[in-house]
């Protein structure tokens, strides 16, 4: 079968072998009211209130948001402001944990019998896409229409990310049970789970767990970045092509991350909303890379301390990982619920300057969407909107493969991101 282009990243196996371990309770958690793509929530508690784990502390007022819950039990000390990765100022609730981790009485297993129940549960649980994007899961379920195929994303193709791999190795049954629940409620006959083929342990555990389950198949994916991107994942797991300007839902496919699927199952059993996050802390500046189970809102600084990371040598501190991650500030950043990785990269001694394009064509051969990234760059320099449109700039998903391979060290992907801004909306 034809495979889409990509790049081979030097994966560090070391992280993938570290089991998921619970992180000790921090002295203070700060929970931002915006931890999804959409509108921020409104705080429902005030300073001095005592809260319990799983208690709703941010109400979703707008239709494009899901509630936020307390990740620790303790006392609210203040309502402050938090600057998100996308540079938005949102309210943030600071809680001093009491160490007891009392679970709120509101946390009762929901009754899920129909698709509507499922959508409501996804909304109330504060479920977002756990692969980093933070898209609203209930929206995805609503928009899915009548899918005939469920694809679970276990690709996790970036450097320094291993939490999905750990989940598949340690509790594969949660994922399979989640898939069975979704298949039953959404009347889907088939599920395919894409896992990177260079993770044989995860593939084996998952295959064992779904043995005897009709309609669930494990699909090994090439060990190439990007595999987790929706279009690439769908094509490599079932051969379907998502056409331009369409989504997976339009071709009858529902794509969810394995962690999201496992969370939905766990929520259906326990009723505890999304208050804990599995995060890989790694990078060249981190001495003891770990896979941690962290309460949402834990300050990034605590995690770096725990993993023996020297703050002075950090050059780039990233939410996510090196290919698509976004820069965060050490001082006030916290772990948010869609964050799957915290990557601290050592400051580079020598920063290579971008030189002129030598027309080697590496970017073109690395582009999973078969675009010509450097031609799009040139079109942007001449402000040629027509050339940007015929070059299908819209298909670019900013995976960064072009910048990664560029021998002239040009920020090809970033220039194309800027070029998207001059495209007229269609």
């Amino acid at each position, binding site marked *: 079968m034809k495979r889409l282009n990509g790049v081979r990243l030097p994966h560090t196996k070391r992280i993938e072998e570290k089991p998921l371990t619970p992180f000790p309770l921090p002295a203070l958690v700060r929970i931002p009211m915006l931890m999804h793509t959409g509108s921020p929530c409104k705080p429902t508690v005030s300073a001095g209130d005592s809260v319990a784990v799983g208690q709703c502390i941010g109400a979703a007022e707008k239709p494009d948001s899901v509630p936020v819950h307390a990740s620790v039990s303790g006392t609210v000390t203040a309502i402050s402001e938090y600057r998100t990765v996308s540079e938005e100022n949102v309210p943030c609730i600071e809680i001093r944990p009491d160490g007891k981790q009392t679970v709120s009485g509101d946390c009762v297993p929901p009754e899920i019998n129909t698709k509507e129940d499922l959508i409501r549960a996804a909304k109330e649980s504060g479920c977002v896409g756990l692969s980093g994007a933070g898209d609203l899961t209930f929206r995805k379920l609503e928009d899915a229409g009548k899918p005939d195929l469920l694809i679970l994303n276990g690709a996790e193709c970036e450097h320094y990310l291993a939490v999905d791999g750990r989940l598949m190795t340690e509790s594969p049954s949660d994922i399979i049970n989640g898939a069975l629940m979704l298949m039953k409620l959404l009347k889907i006959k088939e599920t395919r789970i894409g896992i990177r083929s260079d993770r044989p342990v995860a593939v084996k555990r998952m295959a064992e767990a779904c043995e005897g389950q009709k309609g669930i198949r494990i699909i090994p994916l090439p060990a190439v970045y990007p595999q987790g991107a929706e279009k690439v994942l769908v094509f490599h797991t079932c051969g379907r092509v998502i*056409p331009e300007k369409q989504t997976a839902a339009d071709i009858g496919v529902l794509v969810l991350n394995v962690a999201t699927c496992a969370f939905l199952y766990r929520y259906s059993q326990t009723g505890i909303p999304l208050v804990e996050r599995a995060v890989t802390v790694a990078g060249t500046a981190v001495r003891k890379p770990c896979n941690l189970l962290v309460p949402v809102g834990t300050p990034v600084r605590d995690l770096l301390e725990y993993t023996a990371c020297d703050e002075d040598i950090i050059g*780039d501190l990233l939410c996510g990982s*090196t290919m698509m991650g976004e820069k965060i500030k050490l001082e006030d950043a916290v772990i948010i619920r869609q964050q799957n990785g915290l990557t601290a990269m050592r400051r580079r001694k020598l920063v290579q300057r971008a030189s002129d394009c*030598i027309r080697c064509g590496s970017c073109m051969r690395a582009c999973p969407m078969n*675009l010509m990234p450097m031609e799009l760059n040139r079109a942007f*320099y001449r402000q040629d909107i027509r050339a940007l449109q*015929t*070059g299908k700039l819209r298909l670019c998903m900013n995976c*960064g493969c072009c910048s990664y391979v560029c021998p002239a060290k040009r920020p090809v992907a970033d*220039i194309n991101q800027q070029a998207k801004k001059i495209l007229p909306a269609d």
Partner: protein
Amino acid sequence: MKKRKIPSASPYIRSNANTSKIMLYVLLALVPSALAGVLNFGFSALLLLGTTTGTAIAAEIIFRTVTGKRQTVQDLSAAVTGLLIGMTLPPDIPLWKAGVGSVFAIVIVKQLFGGIGQNFANPAATAKIFLLVLFMNDMTKWRLPQTAQTVDLTPLTGAHASYFDMLLGNTAGCVGETCAIGLILGALFLYLTGTASPFAPIGCLGSFAVLTLAGGYDLPAQLLSGGLMLGACFMTTDYTTAPLTHPGQLLFGIGVGVLTFLIRHYGGFAEGIPFAIVMMNLLTPWLDRLTKPRPFGAETEEKPVREKPKRKFLSHKAS
């Protein structure tokens, strides 16, 4: 192109590929054949290669300094051009003439178009043509290897040589063109390290071989003599002046092969490869457009409807 401030953005990790390394690999790939040239033609060949390489580097530094542009000499592309030029010249050409070729290649062909990645014609091939046209006599004076005996003919123009001698480079000819085995080894190194793709050379040598066989010529002698091997292995694979796509490169190579055959047998010059390469360079943008990859999941493209301009000059006649 306007200068823009380039912000740092994702990805925060880069591969270890870089331009200097690519050019260094090309230089390394040229070493076997250049070394064979020096061993065969002695110190004067070494001096020639040194002159062309040095002049090319100096020309690049001086031009970039005078025009106030950032220095690009560290990317080693000027060194590659200079060495290639030296390799395409006869061993006894006066050094100043060789230097003129280097300056022409760097300043006129490369830098005036904006430097690395911007020129449309292959600098080394163009310089070879320039020198051939300008200094016809010096460019066709040959010497037998290991001797001081000058000859008028090379294997390409009818001198007798065994296939084995031609493979090893033990014949009269240009410094870096005679040792075919060295060139082939260098080219293999380039493909194995992923520096160049083999499509253009395959197209070039393949189409040339087919035509040569069809025309009833001596195939091994034709393939191993003259500048064909050097041009096919190192000039058709130039990133800047050859097409980007693999099908484009194949078509480009086929074009070079066909033109070389035609010029060699029906043209006024004994050697056709530099002319063929520069002619095909002109077609590169068109070949790129022809073989543009289809974006994944893209709608089939509609051709823009171009409105015909109204013919105004007819209207006053009617009124």
